[in-house]
């Protein structure tokens, strides 16, 4: 537990000074972001019990109904097939958040592992991993996703795969850089002297020190995953059309823009507000965790 000691020793002095000073100014951002994200997570989890209708139920007598306001049967209106927009938006949050969480965790796992290995061992391993990073990074974002989806076919699993394909890279790059400096620190040398294996050093001494940074990267990766998922679904290469998501709803709405404003408005608003919430949370996290910004008193 050498790293724990060094970690607590270092941060103990800072913690007492920094937290009280930063929190009052940051809490608005963190709080707003947190509430928004939490709200959508709750909606996603309890979705089926609060959705007034089956999201796929077509009610042909109630097609293209304008939003009727709170309390009315179709408070956010219906689409061209008479499906309830509110229910579809609620169900859509499940898929969007599920995909985003899955992408963040899988890519985080791959990125942190490869980054730590790359930085810790150096040499040939580092060279191979960094070449891989270079190749994957040479694709314009989203284009790789579109290509993978177009050729593997629609589906949740393929979608997560297509999004993970590039999102592990930011983790990998940052983690590698930090590992390079961490591996020469005293607590790593101490662990080596005590006979710890490389695997033990990486998993128990290096990776715990990378969690803070990875958390910040993860928040922004989550925001970008939600937008990317919606973009792919919008282009018709995301989730299958029978699953309601914010992206597929927007795609369906495209041809009715001039006649039914409520079709594109609500799903898009959901994407926007969720991503805004995550970005607010990410900003706040970075303000708290990034020592460079702490020093300059900057607030991004």
């Amino acid at each position, binding site marked *: 537990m050498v790293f724990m000691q060094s970690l607590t020793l270092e941060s103990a002095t800072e913690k007492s000074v920094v937290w009280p000073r930063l929190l009052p100014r940051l809490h608005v951002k963190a709080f707003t972001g947190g509430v928004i994200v939490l709200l959508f997570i709750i909606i996603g989890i309890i979705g089926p019990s609060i959705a007034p209708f089956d999201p796929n139920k077509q009610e042909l007598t109630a097609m293209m109904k304008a939003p009727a306001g709170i309390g009315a049967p179709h408070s956010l209106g219906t689409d061209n097939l008479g499906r309830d927009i509110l229910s579809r938006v609620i169900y859509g949050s499940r898929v969007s958040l599920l995909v985003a969480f899955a992408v963040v965790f899988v890519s985080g796992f791959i990125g942190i592992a490869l980054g730590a290995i790359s930085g810790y061992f150096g040499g040939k391993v580092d060279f191979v991993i960094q070449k891989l990073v*270079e*190749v994957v990074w040479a694709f314009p974002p*989203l284009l790789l996703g579109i290509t993978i989806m177009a050729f593997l076919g629609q589906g949740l699993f393929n979608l997560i795969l297509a999004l993970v394909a590039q999102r592990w890279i930011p983790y990998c790059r940052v983690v590698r850089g930090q590992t390079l400096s961490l591996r020469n620190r005293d607590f790593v040398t101490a662990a080596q002297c005590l006979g710890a294996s490389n695997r033990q050093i990486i998993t128990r001494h290096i990776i715990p020190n990378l969690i803070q940074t990875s958390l910040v990267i993860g928040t922004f990766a989550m925001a970008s995953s939600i937008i990317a998922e919606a973009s792919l679904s*919008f282009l018709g290469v995301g989730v299958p059309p029978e699953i309601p998501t914010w992206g597929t709803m927007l795609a369906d709405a495209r041809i009715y823009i001039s006649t039914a404003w409520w079709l594109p408005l609500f799903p898009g608003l959901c994407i926007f507000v969720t991503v805004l919430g995550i970005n607010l949370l990410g900003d706040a996290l970075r303000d708290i965790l990034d020592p460079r910004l702490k020093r300059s008193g900057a607030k991004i």
Partner: protein
Amino acid sequence: MVSYLVHRLAGTLPVLLLISFLVFSLIHAAPGDPTLLLLGEETNAADIARAKERWGLDQPLYVQYLKFVRAAAAGDFGKSFKYAEPVINVIKTRLPATIELAVFAIIIASLLAIPLGVWAGAKPNSWIDNLGTTFGLFGISMPSFWLAIMLILLLAGVLNVLPTSGRSTYGVAGPEQTGFYLFDSIMQKNWAAVWDGLTHIFLPALALGMNMLGILMRVTRSSILEVMNEDYVQTARAKGLQEKNVVWRHVTSNALIPVITVVGLELGTLLSGSIIVETVFAWPGSGSLLITALNARDYPLVTGIVMTYTLAFVAINLIIDGLYAVVDPRIRY
């Protein structure tokens, strides 16, 4: 500098080769037979065999790949299944529209973002800072295609002031020379066509540039904030320079280096964003062409577009690295 660039170019080659391999294998791992899709389900076996032979689809995959690499190195991506024309020609006719759109998006984003970012960074926690920060946050949180739809809804649908699809009104533009409509129209002094082109490009460019605007604004602001604490800024103030001159001459020129990197990095996002924005606005560029090609399983065309985009992205990154040296005299390769 030259040796550095040569070194970087040489390093890019294997990357490009690997990319071509990745794209090629992805495309050929895809379900769905392109011959069936193009010729229809009722085609007889002899026709299918003939079509496969003509397009080289009957040969083993590695032969197809080697042929592909050799031809691609010479700029030849084969013939498009759908358009029955060389892929490179199809892309050439559509690429100018995408470049024009991207350039306009960058112009809109930079013109708004950099002054706003400098202003916000120079006066942290003021009202302009709060406004700019909020604006920047909105910019990065807004999906471009939703913004595009909302812009169409508002400016074109309700207010009915701007066209929502295509690059020009039929018959207004003069004969095409370079493919860049605005450039052509200016050269021909056809001011009606220039105005027409501007009204057509404004909404898609705004939708496409919004994300970049948000990011640029945030990066400019934080970069300015950081430079503001440097000693030489204090020195400039101590010399009695006006704050305006301190900010614009001493701070901004030094703070713009990370901003340039971000412009470069964001160009990739812009390229991908153009795929969606072009689809929404029926903009006849290479992005909407990609979606058409994907739906038709036009392998050579898809490969051609993906390779073109990737090549452009790699080239842009190289140029950005070169630009560093121009902007920051301290950097020498």
